[in-house]
């Protein structure tokens, strides 16, 4: 219980830090692009929306920093992230909430697939270390070193431009109306296949290498030797004794790698013009839409924190040691 409380407190603190960073970045950096944009929007923007933008970007010079901070929190708690400049006058919160499910779906499915496949391959490689299986390590290293977006470019070139099997951009057939029909879901899977494949390909190597190294370490533990000595079948020793223990650090490193995978997926969305939050962030960056940029960062960070917390809780359930130890 103490463990859980500590973790929850930590995530609350991190969320607070992320929001505070988000508050300070536009205030600390030189240049005042928002003022210029507000000047251009003069008259077209209603006074309340203008006020929230001023609060979000610290343009109210006459109020104290503390008052600005309090106002900022007030806006966030009401779910007001300001107005987007490019998609004027749509609120940032609306744009973000439309694109978030796409990213969550893509990252979620791809990460689960990569985790399962990677851990299985890693188990096998670690168990057969010192044999030909070690020859697969350089391949894994290569995939780990390739930037996500480049792998995306290559898959587009091969599967979409040359073979024409899959579409190169978009997230569903534009001729369809989004609905919970088999046809529409099929289209989403068809369009999502290439982005998901690239995310899996580039993140699977990390799981393979992590699992392999843990297997090598775990398999010289006494309980594995005992299991061998008992004459248990090799499969049972491998999965029931070694892999079962080796997978625990994988679960805990899940939390740490998630931010990285999400970052990569965002780039992948930019390459595939997949309508998730990464593509939104890309559009925001290329059109200098600062409110949208800030909103995207905030939502991405908070989602990663929530996912991390879930992974932590799962870890606490899986490994009883975390519940008794102090940390």
């Amino acid at each position, binding site marked *: 219980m103490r463990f859980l409380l500590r973790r929850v407190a*930590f995530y609350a603190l991190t969320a607070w830090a992320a929001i505070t960073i988000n508050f300070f970045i*536009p205030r600390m950096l*030189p240049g005042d692009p928002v003022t210029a944009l507000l000047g251009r929007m003069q008259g077209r923007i209603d006074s309340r929306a203008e006020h929230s933008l001023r609060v979000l970007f610290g343009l109210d010079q006459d109020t104290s920093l503390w008052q600005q901070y309090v106002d900022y929190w007030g806006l966030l708690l009401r779910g007001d992230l300001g107005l987007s400049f490019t998609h004027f006058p749509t609120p940032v919160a609306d744009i973000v909430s439309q694109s978030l499910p796409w990213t969550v779906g893509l990252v979620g499915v791809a990460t689960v697939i990569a985790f399962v496949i990677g851990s299985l391959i890693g188990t096998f490689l670690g168990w057969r270390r010192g044999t030909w299986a*070690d020859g697969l390590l350089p391949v894994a290293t290569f995939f780990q070193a390739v930037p996500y977006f480049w792998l995306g470019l290559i898959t587009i070139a091969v599967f979409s431009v040359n073979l024409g099997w899959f579409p190169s951009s978009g997230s569903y057939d534009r001729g369809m109306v989004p609905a919970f029909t088999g046809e529409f879901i099929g289209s989403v899977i068809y369009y999502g296949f290439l982005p998901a494949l690239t995310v899996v390909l580039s993140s699977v190597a990390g799981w393979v290498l992590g699992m392999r190294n843990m297997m090598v370490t775990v398999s010289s533990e006494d309980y594995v030797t005992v299991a061998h000595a008992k004459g248990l079948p090799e499969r049972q020793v491998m999965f029931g004794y070694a892999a079962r223990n080796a997978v625990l650090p994988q679960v805990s490193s899940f939390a740490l790698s998630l931010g990285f995978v999400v970052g990569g997926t965002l780039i992948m969305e930019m390459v595939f013009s997949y309508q998730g939050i990464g593509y939104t962030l*890309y559009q925001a960056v290329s059109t200098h839409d600062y409110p949208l*940029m800030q909103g995207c960062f905030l939502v991405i960070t908070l989602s990663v924190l929530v996912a991390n917390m879930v992974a932590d809780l799962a870890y606490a359930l899986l490994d009883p040691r975390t519940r008794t130890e102090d940390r």
Partner: protein
Amino acid sequence: MNNRLMFLRNGKVITGLVILGFFTLLALLGPWIAPYDPNQVSDALLSPPSAAHWLGTDHTGRDILSQLVVGTRGVLVVGLVAGVSATVVGVLVGVTAGFVGGVGDESLSALSNMFLVIPQLPLIILIAAQLPSAGGLTVALVIGATGWAWGARVLRAQTLSLRKRDFVEAARANGERTWRLVLVEVMPNLTAVIASGFVGTVTFAVLSQVTLSFIGITPVSEWNWGTILFWAQNNLALQRGAWWWFVPAGACIALLGMALTLVNFGIDEIVNPRLRSTGLHARSLRRRGIRPRVGFTPVVREARS
């Protein structure tokens, strides 16, 4: 001493270092050995690789090999600056946290854990996109400022275990000052961990910078491998089938990243002998007819004649 020799005998490390050396040479000599000026426009528009242009040309007839060669410097400088700055911060935070313990440790660890969980790439994009000009060095410093947490975490754990060792206790009992304890007793034992953290950060920095250039946040006139991919993506290189435009730059990034990872493997094998024991001698074991078994570390001793 033995360990250092081992480091250089390891095939992975040698491969990694050779590739790194090659790219360093390119970075140093790039502008002089590039066959063309990377910005020089010519009549050969989007031509495939030929004798005149080894890696072909882009949509305005600029030589891609030259862009690649000249761009190497930008990539390596950013990697190096980001790696060094992140390592310095990581060492300061990690070693301090591990050494002082107590409340200082708690707060420093919480700080580095926070930086670990906040997704770095969006944060870097957010900062870089709001800077008036995000040149190579600025990006490197931003990457360094956000990427130190992993190293700090590993270093803290290692320092924590070193702090209680007998030789440190002995030195403390001898009345050595704290700074001397840290610098002379603890730090030398952290060399491998620091080195591996540094290499890891350089890899991450290279990937981040190339990504930032690819999405067009850094100035597109500053050549690096990501800029080439930026131009390729924005001029539909994929749809036009101009593979020579985007394949070489990506391959270079992958090659550099792989070289860094290989070096890191070598360092890992020094730190964790279990990873080393059989992996290094797989072939010689097979030749001797020894089948590696899980749970047992084969030790082969030559019979003295």
